[in-house]
């Protein structure tokens, strides 16, 4: 089964399994390789990358929540040039497409970044992460710049709360796909320091909220693939997004707490959950159907072995 996750242009991205890890939850493709079969995933979305290096945040970066976690990393990364230098070989050997998650707040940063990324054959597409408080006008300007500047497909990850307002504008600006959505932002009190901390919220509880946004927007958006992302923790969660109209899904923090769930979801959505042994009779998979007994009688064999 192959799925086109971007608009049908000359560089459209086609994946074999409609799921991929979300940006910021899977490193740069270099982690979890000992735990899961990465080639079962549809694609890899890298951790966020900026044109210039960004330092890690200071202070509390992780606050445990009831059935979830709030994370504020500051999106530390070594900058675009060093990231490409470090991971180019790894990405070139990946059997699945690599989508680079780009964080940029100005058109100039986007121009410089996309010019550089376009030279890299190992990158199949760019996922542009938009700020949470961005206006539709600013989003359009950034997306138009990205689309015009490069050849690679531009997927745009929308903030959850503003998705209703900016989705259509971003689609009209030429985005090749929409990711709905980035993990929502929240504020929680750090039990260790007693201070309030802001960051992104990862939890199964995010899924019903984002699923509604996806469902609502699917009615309004035409001819643009949508990737559902937020709070997926089970196989059914992932299927729910596809049922709501999403072309594929991105799986986030469950990768941290139960890494093998990524592979389970990939197998499930890729139609690989049931693997029948060659020559097996159906009743070995569905006890009670009696095919084995019938076959043995036909051959004249005793079935009291």
């Amino acid at each position, binding site marked *: 089964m192959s799925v086109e996750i971007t608009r049908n242009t000359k560089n459209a991205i086609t994946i074999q399994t409609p799921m991929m890890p979300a940006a*910021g*939850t899977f490193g740069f493709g270099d*982690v*979890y390789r000992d735990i899961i079969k990465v080639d079962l995933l549809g694609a890899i979305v890298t951790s966020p990358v900026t044109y210039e290096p960004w330092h*890690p945040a200071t202070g509390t970066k992780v606050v445990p929540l009831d059935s979830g976690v709030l994370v504020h990393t500051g*999106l*530390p990364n070594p900058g675009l040039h060093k990231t490409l230098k470090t991971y180019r070989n790894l990405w070139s050997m990946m059997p699945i497409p690599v989508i680079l998650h780009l964080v940029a707040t100005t058109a100039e940063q986007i121009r410089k970044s996309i010019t550089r990324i376009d030279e890299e054959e190992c990158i199949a597409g760019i996922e542009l992460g938009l700020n949470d408080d961005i206006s539709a006008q600013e989003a359009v300007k950034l997306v138009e710049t990205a689309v015009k500047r490069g050849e690679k497909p531009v997927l745009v990850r929308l903030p959850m709360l503003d998705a209703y307002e900016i989705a259509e504008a971003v689609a009209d600006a030429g985005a090749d796909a929409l990711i709905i959505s980035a993990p929502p932002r929240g504020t929680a009190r750090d039990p*260790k320091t007693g201070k309030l901390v802001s960051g992104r919220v990862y939890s199964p509880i995010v899924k019903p909220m984002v699923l509604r946004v996806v469902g609502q927007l699917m009615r309004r958006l035409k001819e643009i693939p949508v990737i559902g992302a937020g709070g997926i923790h089970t196989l059914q969660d992932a299927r729910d997004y596809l049922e709501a109209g999403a072309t594929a899904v991105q799986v986030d923090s469950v990768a941290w*707490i139960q890494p093998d769930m990524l592979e389970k979801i990939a197998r499930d959505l890729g139609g690989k959950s049931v693997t029948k042994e060659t020559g097996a009779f159906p009743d070995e998979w569905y006890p009670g159907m009696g095919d084995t007994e019938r076959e043995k009688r036909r051959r004249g064999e005793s079935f009291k072995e």
Partner: protein
Amino acid sequence: MKETQAVIERIKQVNLGYQRIELSVDESLLQIKPGQSILARLTETWDPYLRQQWFPVNLLNGKLIVERPLSETYEIGQVIHVLGIIGQPFRFRKTLRNVLLVAYDTPPIPLLMTIPWLLANKVSVTIALLGVATSYDTQHLPPEVEVELGNNEGEFLWQNQVMTLGWADQVFVTVGPDNEFSRFANVIERVRELRHDVPRHYLFGVFQQLLPCGAGACHSCMIRTDEGTALICLEGPAFDLTQVILR
């Protein structure tokens, strides 16, 4: 790193506040060394969401021993979902003779696995318990370990401090997790006051930040060093405090 299951084989109270749990673990976890840890998940539900970081205190007869507070309830036969091994072993000097372990406002559990290893290698060990760590009962520790108690007012101070810091070839410090960076900054400041120089690979901070992934995927445990950045879950938990940018 692997995702495996462990089974609780035995539980024994070892002092007034802690119990030791003997775990049957996957063979891969028997390679664990002092400083390294596992991420444990006790339930099938999403609450608590994050795995707990468990620093083993010993490895005996093919079983991993962890120390947990008595306030937590465990049962023989209980299955624990484990992700590990996390981090790197402590980097001891080859010519090591004396080691100072310091627990400052936190139980000394991340440091305890070093003790049997160091004693077996004929290295003398002193452990200083400061602040809330003074309430940690040390009766179950080997008698060869010298214990120094500070006051319980949260100061980085104990008797014979100048002597023990001068005598130690290496120092490993763990601090209360409420404000690790600021506490480590105070520690290095204090040690610099007491020694005329703090050489490289002498004073190590053992970081205990929450690790959502433990695999280098989430980047939430990234710290700045004078050589760039480092991930506590991959390159820690111990870092040379003269190289970490703490402020």
